């Protein structure tokens, strides 16, 4: 069953630059997909359209049955609650502890304190940071900060986790630790789409790979076929 379906998607920015054109794509529930390509090929634009940071100029983007391109600004939060997003720069609240950063994603929905506590502890356990709940982001390494960001992205139990170069700022061994965490999350049923520049990671993980070039789909490698 398709979780994501893109039909004839085109995105032209106000500056006149066309970032995505004639893109048709579908991603099934539970898949782990890498999106690769050279700088400026449209990878970031593609994932920004998935969580409706950007709107397509034409075409349809269906995520979990919702046409996200047609969502009004005031309703965007509805789709965002079903999607977790992880960034290269972690985007953590510097003045909040690890626990508060993760709990933040649950508190805004009015979830009871006890439930928040058990969910946060569970998810921090999953990313291996249970012992750092009282630390502030500045006291953590890059890899640890990224694991906090992942914990925050998945604590709501999203169907889809979008990762925009999550290992971009990390050394190879820390990057592989992050990939292991993501693999665990994928095993629990969450669909993962990850943009990366690291061919080593892509080869190591051996999953489906979508290659973009100048905003078009250049190649779509099935799981285990990218070499």
């Amino acid at each position: 069953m398709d979780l994501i379906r893109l039909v004839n998607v085109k995105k032209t920015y106000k500056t006149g630059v066309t970032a995505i054109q004639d893109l048709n794509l579908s991603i099934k529930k539970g898949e782990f997909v890498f999106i690769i390509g050279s700088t400026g090929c449209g990878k970031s634009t593609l994932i920004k359209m998935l969580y409706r940071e950007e709107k397509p100029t034409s075409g349809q983007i269906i995520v979990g049955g919702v046409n996200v391109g047609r969502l009004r600004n005031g309703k965007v939060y509805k789709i965002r609650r079903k999607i977790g997003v992880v960034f290269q720069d972690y985007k953590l609240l510097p003045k909040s502890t690890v626990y508060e950063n993760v709990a933040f994603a649950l508190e805004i929905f009015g979830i009871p304190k006890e439930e928040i506590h058990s969910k946060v502890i569970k998810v921090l356990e999953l990313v291996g940071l249970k012992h750092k709940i009282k630390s502030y982001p500045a006291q953590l390494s890059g890899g640890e900060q990224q694991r906090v960001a992942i914990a925050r992205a998945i604590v709501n139990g999203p169907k889809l986790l979008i990762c925009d170069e999550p290992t971009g700022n990390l050394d190879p061994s820390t990057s592989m630790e992050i990939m292991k965490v993501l693999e665990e999350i994928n095993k629990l049923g969450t669909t993962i789409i990850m943009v990366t520049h690291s061919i080593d990671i892509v080869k190591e993980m051996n999953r489906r790979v979508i290659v973009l070039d100048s905003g078009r789909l250049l190649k779509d490698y099935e799981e285990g076929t990218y070499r």
Partner: protein
Amino acid sequence: MKTFRIIGRNIRDAFKGVFRNFSLSLASISCITITLIVVAVSIVLSYNVDNFTNLVEKDVTIVAFLDNELDDEQIDGIKDKISVVDNVEKYEFISKSDITKDMMESSDIFESIMKNWSDEENPIQNTFQVKVEDINDIDKAAKDIKKIEGVTLVKYGEGMVEQLVSAFDVVHKICLISVVALILVTAFLISNTIKITISSRQREISIMRLIGASNLNIRIPFIIEGLLLGALGSIIPIIMTIYGYISIYQKFNGQLFSPFIKLIPPTPFVYTTSLLLLGIGIIVGMFGSWRAVRKHLKI
């Protein structure tokens, strides 16, 4: 239950926001404090000017001089007629003997002249002293009284009263305009300072949006934070208004320079002014936050 939890979280986050961004919060609070002090001074001044003009206006009296040939019955008749004249608030009959007595008591010279006057020789007339409700229509009331048979002359300081009334009107309007203008300037200043405070937290707002917070979810803690900043910023102006005004009132014995210029008694004046300051601080603080966050929600 869920709504209460969300409200509780919003209040807690607002407090956290104020204290975790303390230097910027302090900047906002200082700005609110300074502008509210200016507003407080202008409110106190304008209310006192208004009070003073009202007291002066109330003091203006129409004096109706009566024919000295009238008997008591005819004077009673005039009294009835004055009582039904439009705009008359109250009136008092003062007989020629009362006036003579007052004048003799007030000066030795008057006494030496007047003590030898017989009742027939006394040129002073019986009078009615009339106060009006609306000083702007004093002229009409005076003319109506003049028409009453037995009234020989009506005086109320014609010309001067009209000038005084129009001068007070101008003063009153200037006071009102300056208070409103100051409140608007305050609103602008405070909302801009809060805007800077909140703009520095753009990252926080963008993260909230990313994790699926609705616009309302994002706005409410910031609006409560604005409310808190406004309330905290109004503390010093309120203390200054209460203690400052009471000490000035006591020092000057309730009057400024002369008994003619009376100050408004501190109670309940200082408390209503304090409430007004708190209200302005809170509303402007909330408005400033709402305006600032709105800018960051247009994604």
